[in-house]
């Protein structure tokens, strides 16, 4: 690296006082480190740049040492963490790019725009890799729907996701939504995008080639979202108005940018490209230079802006949406401009690639920032803290819950089943997903409501399967176990569809890591994710960390969310989640134990979040995945459904309600030594509900044995309509399946009826 030879102009207009440093979220020692890197005091622009790049959102200062422990290599992983998105090899020259990202803080303040721009950002992360976005999944957390604030937030978030994805024309094919009062003031909005590409067209966010032009394209830069990355890296305090830090999205421009970008890549006009996302121009320029070991020199006076009088500081840190920074081949600049013009987009050359290793920002003739790229991007101070479990939570795990496991009569068991089906965390999500276009692009073979979404892959026989899962309650009670469960459940959901899970992306939603109890949760959860990923052979392809999910009423449940992507060799072998037809045999794979800790049953029926979450045997989880993939390939299953929240009774209800041709009757008998609550509603892991042609049952049994799994035949599927009759352990529940269906389907609509006249 060359030394700094030109000192930036003297900036007397803003003095860098300790107060200014603190406002930028930097500690005294971090500031001293910056002075050390520069060999002088920073300018205000430089301070802003460091503040954004060294925020948790961009710099991972509290999480990086932990994330380094995750497995990031695998035979099918083409691109791991550190790029705009991860990429796996799906065969025949096809790749699948995918990533999840949070937009929690913006959505807490302005749910519609917060969620919409969350979708926009993750789409750009995927199409900058040269991949066409083919699907979005989302993972949402809200407070209780009894609260008007939570209803307002959900309404806005769902419309924001829908309006953005629908307009761009990327189907929203799956996701999960969970409600708990702990998320009341700090909802979680995690969006995952999947894209497909020819691997020989893979593009990376690099600034190679000295002298190559650096171009800003897409929307003009405004004052919105300044310091969004820093905002996302602090607690949500009450009283202060954070709205100026929320960006506004324009999906129409995004669609144009998507088509133009893919055309530029297809015509091989680019060297590298990156979304101007969090920390805008600053992070895209610095990260592209860092990946290439080059430098970048830009003149902000050449940046297209949409308001007058913007300072260099504002232009560097604006998070205006739908913008890209690209490095073009110099002789092709005119062609680049012409392609963009055809899509009615702005393009401006704002600088060039250098070999001096510096991120230099000019404003006309004046140099306002000059920072060595490598320490800016890679030397973000990291902290390893001492995590200590909150003794109150440890105490919760030891609570004796046996008195709550009794269901004295069949009537009581029936009431509990109906109450759980009415629980927003379990009920039908149709109110949400009907607002999303799930079938545009005509790839969706299995959409919302399935255990995993299944999409066809280009013009091949193959399919892509994807699921997104997390369980904050489990992680709260036992972080390592809960995180392992999240990975295994995502894998099981993908495998239930018949696909082999290949890799994950993760979104780590936690509270303020400066607290020892939150840091403990974070470190334990990351360890649990790593263990499960190793056991399943599904490496981490990238992800996002969202800390400081905390309000004055406390932190959220630690909520790692796992996005799992798998590949199915022949899409014709995909397996649906719900029952199919009359006389199919119902089978249960896996064992039910006396496990009600952390369950939906305890939370909904007894208002308790306590106990030890279910145990998870990682070796067994891996064998179960292998079994499901092998069984699907051999065409043994008519349906496969993961048994999770709400336990066996809920899994049986969901598979019956969603059956082909309408809700179907079933007759199930299953002996159990467990308490009635554990037998019906316990959430023991590694269980899957299958249905099959009677002639295939023996083959399924043999396959189970070969994989060291226990199985039993527990009932049969009946005709459409009729009674749902399940005798499980000591209790029998017997009522018309349409009664179950009505409760299941009405739960969300009836709670959302008051939303601003926005219901039919």
């Amino acid at each position, binding site marked *: 690296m060359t030394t700094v030879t030109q000192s930036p102009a003297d900036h007397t207009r803003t003095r860098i006082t300790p107060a200014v440093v603190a406002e930028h979220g930097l500690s005294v020692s971090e500031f001293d480190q910056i002075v050390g890197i520069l060999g002088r005091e920073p300018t205000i622009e430089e301070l802003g740049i460091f503040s954004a790049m060294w925020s948790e959102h961009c710099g991972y200062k509290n999480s990086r040492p932990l994330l380094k422990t995750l497995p990031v290599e695998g035979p099918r992983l083409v691109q791991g963490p550190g790029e705009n998105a991860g990429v796996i090899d799906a065969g025949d020259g096809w790749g699948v790019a995918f990533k999840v990202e949070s937009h929690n803080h913006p959505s807490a303040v302005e749910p519609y725009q917060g969620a919409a721009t969350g979708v926009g950002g993750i789409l750009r992360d995927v199409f900058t890799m040269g991949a066409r976005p083919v699907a979005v999944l989302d993972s949402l957390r809200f407070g209780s729907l009894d609260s008007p604030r939570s209803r307002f937030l959900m309404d806005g978030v769902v419309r924001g996701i829908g309006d953005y994805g629908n307009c761009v024309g990327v189907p929203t094919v799956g996701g999960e939504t969970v409600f708990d009062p702990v998320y009341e003031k700090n909802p979680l909005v995690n969006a995952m995008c999947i894209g497909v590409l020819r691997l020989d067209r893979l593009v990376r966010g690099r600034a190679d080639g000295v002298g190559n032009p650096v171009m800003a394209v897409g929307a003009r830069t405004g004052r919105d979202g300044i310091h969004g990355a820093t905002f996302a890296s602090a607690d949500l305090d009450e009283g202060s108005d954070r709205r100026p830090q929320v960006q506004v999205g324009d999906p129409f421009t995004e669609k144009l940018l998507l088509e133009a970008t893919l055309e530029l890549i297809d015509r091989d006009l680019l060297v590298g490209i990156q979304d101007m996302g969090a920390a805008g121009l600053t992070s895209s320029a610095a990260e592209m230079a860092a990946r290439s070991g080059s430098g970048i020199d830009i003149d902000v006076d050449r940046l297209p802006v949409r308001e007058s009088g913007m300072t260099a500081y504002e232009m560097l840190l604006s998070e205006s949406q739908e913008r890209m920074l690209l490095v073009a081949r110099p002789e092709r600049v005119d062609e680049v401009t012409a392609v963009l013009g055809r899509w009615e987009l702005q393009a401006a050359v704002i600088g060039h690639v250098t070999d001096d290793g510096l991120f230099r920002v000019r404003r006309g003739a004046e140099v306002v920032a000059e920072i060595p790229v490598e320490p800016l991007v890679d030397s973000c101070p990291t902290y390893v803290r001492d995590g200590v479990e909150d003794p109150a939570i440890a105490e919760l795990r030891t609570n004796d819950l046996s008195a709550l496991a009794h269901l004295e009569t069949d009537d009581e068991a029936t009431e509990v089943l109906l109450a759980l089906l009415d629980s927003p965390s379990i009920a039908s999500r149709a109110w949400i997903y009907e607002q999303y276009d799930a079938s545009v*692009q005509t790839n969706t073979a299995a959409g919302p409501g399935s255990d995993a979404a299944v999409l066809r892959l280009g013009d091949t026989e193959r399919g892509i399967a994807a699921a997104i899962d997390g369980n904050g309650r489990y992680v709260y009670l036992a972080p390592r176990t809960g995180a392992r469960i999240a990975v295994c459940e995502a894998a099981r959901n993908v495998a239930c569809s018949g696909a082999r899970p290949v890799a994950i992306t993760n979104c780590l939603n936690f509270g303020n890591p400066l607290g020892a109890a939150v840091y403990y949760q974070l470190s334990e959860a990351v360890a649990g994710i790593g263990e499960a990923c190793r056991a399943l052979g599904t490496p981490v392809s990238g992800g996002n960390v969202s800390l400081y999910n905390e309000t004055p009423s406390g932190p959220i449940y630690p909520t790692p969310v796992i996005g799992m992507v798998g590949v199915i060799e022949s899409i014709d072998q995909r397996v649906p989640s719900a029952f199919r037809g009359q006389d199919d045999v119902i089978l249960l794979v896996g064992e039910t134990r006396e496990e009600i800790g952390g369950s939906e049953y305890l939370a909904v029926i007894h208002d308790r979040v306590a106990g030890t979450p279910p145990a998870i045997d990682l070796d067994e989880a891996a064998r179960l995945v292998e079994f499901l993939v092998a069984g699907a390939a051999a065409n043994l299953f008519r349906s496969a459904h993961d048994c999770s929240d709400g336990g066996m009774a809920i899994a049986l209800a969901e598979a019956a309600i969603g059956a082909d041709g309408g809700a179907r009757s079933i007759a199930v008998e299953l002996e159990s030594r467990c308490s009635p609550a554990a037998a019906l509603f316990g959430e023991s892991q590694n269980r899957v509900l299958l249905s099959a042609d009677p002639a295939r049952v023996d083959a399924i049994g043999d396959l189970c044995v070969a994989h060291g799994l226990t199985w039993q035949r527990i009932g049969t599927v009946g005709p459409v309509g009729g009674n749902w009759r399940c005798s499980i352990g000591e209790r029998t529940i017997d009522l018309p399946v349409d009664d179950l269906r009505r409760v299941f389907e009405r739960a969300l609509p009836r709670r959302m009826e008051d939303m601003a006249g926005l219901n039919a």
Partner: protein
Amino acid sequence: MMRVGIVRFPGSNCDADCARAVREGLGQEALFLWHKTHSLEGADVVLLPGGFSYGDHLRAGAIARFSPIMQEVVDFARAGGPVIGICNGFQILCEAHLLPGALIRNRGIRFRHRDVHLRVERTDTVFTRACCGGQVLRMPIAHGEGQFVADVETLAELEADGRVVFRYVDESGCAAASANPNGSQNDIAGICNGAGNVVGLMPHPERAVSDLLGCKDGLPLFRSLLAAVPEAVAS
């Protein structure tokens, strides 16, 4: 070989789906027509696909109708050429006055994506010749502004002339309030012009052309185009 020209406006997002349905579902040729050109490039059929042309700014379809190519589309339609508008394409046809009425915000305000059932009311249009009268078809809708409205006289005229091509019905083919997803007057899902060569509909037949997508009920509509331009198919 029949050539189906699919117009791409900025913001069209069902263009590729329509092309795939024409090529794979029908085995015919699909070509994209850029909105800024003035040539239909010898297309036998013009299809305006779904999406959000110009981001639905102002009103759905309101800006696209002024795209240069729309002059050629209007001339082609007036000369009797088959013109199909699906979803946003239907909205554009109404804005361009090739079809009467308007498509306004869904009665329930929200965007809706779900499967609906349609009853084919007329089988002598370019898009329904391969259907049987009263045939019930299942396919998805995906729109926020699909509520068909027209003034009293226009509506009466449409009904009197038998220009309602598709109606939302229940699975058994009967009218039902719950089967109408957006509040359209008279359960109207699609209409045609007087000559039956311009057809617009809100549902997406191009998304219902294979078992993989869960349904093939859209195929008869595309097959109808073959009957509309027999000389092109034969050549």
